[in-house]
């Protein structure tokens, strides 16, 4: 099974299972873009880059994935972005190994770097706050 799909499923489940995060991210959890009309703030995650870890004869040991996981919302409600980003870091900041339901597992997960920037949409300032998380995932 695709390691990326397994990682996304694990991230999605982990995010949604956290009641504190869900209280802050009232717009829900989205892979990539949220639907138009969703009320912020919400959580967004997506693949940033990746490289496989191989043996010398190119047998795959695990996938090394860099995933962005961030809060997205209005800067006027920045406190909610901070609260959500803090919870994201608690959930993914440093853990592993974790077995996955369909087989395989997350060997390790840790933050590679912080992520923070803002944009202007229809005259309103929006913020993105979260991190880039390095996930070593051995597929099923």
């Amino acid at each position, binding site marked *: 099974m695709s390691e990326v799909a397994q990682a996304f499923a694990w991230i999605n489940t982990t995010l949604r299972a956290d009641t504190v995060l869900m209280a802050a991210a009232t717009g829900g959890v989205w892979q*990539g*873009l*949220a639907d*138009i009309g969703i009320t912020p703030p919400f959580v*967004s995650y*997506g*693949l*940033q*880059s*990746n*490289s496989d870890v191989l043996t010398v004869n190119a047998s795959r040991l695990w996938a090394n994935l*860099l995933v*962005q996981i*961030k809060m*997205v919302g209005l800067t006027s409600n920045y406190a909610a972005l901070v609260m959500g980003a803090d919870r994201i870091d608690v959930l993914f900041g440093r853990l592993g190994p974790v077995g996955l339901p369909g087989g395989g597992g997350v060997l390790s997960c840790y933050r590679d770097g912080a*992520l923070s*920037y803002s*944009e202007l*949409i229809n005259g309103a300032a*929006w913020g*993105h706050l979260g991190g*880039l998380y390095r996930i070593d995932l051995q597929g099923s």
Partner: protein
Amino acid sequence: MAGSFNHFDLIAARLTPACSEIAAETAWHAVSNIQQHIIANGQVDTGDMLNSVAVADGDTPTTKDIIIGMDYWVYQNYGTRYLPARPFVEPGIEDTRAQFEALGATLEKRIT
């Protein structure tokens, strides 16, 4: 009677310039790799962002910074509310890993 003699001073003197060369060559590989991802992602309109990827001197002789002159790179790379993330920085750096290791293997030749 055995005399005391070695080339450590000479090696030490050549080490920093050699590492500096490797850092510079790696940085230019990174620029090229990032630009290739920008092109592959279809993120070229005016070419300003593509052409603004460059190398700048870092804090030390053995450090180089990769800079992107157009500040909207962050929206293209990480996505926005309405724009999907189409990363080129991190994949470009990942692609540079093998080139850095190959250049690192030339260190001994550079200091002798």
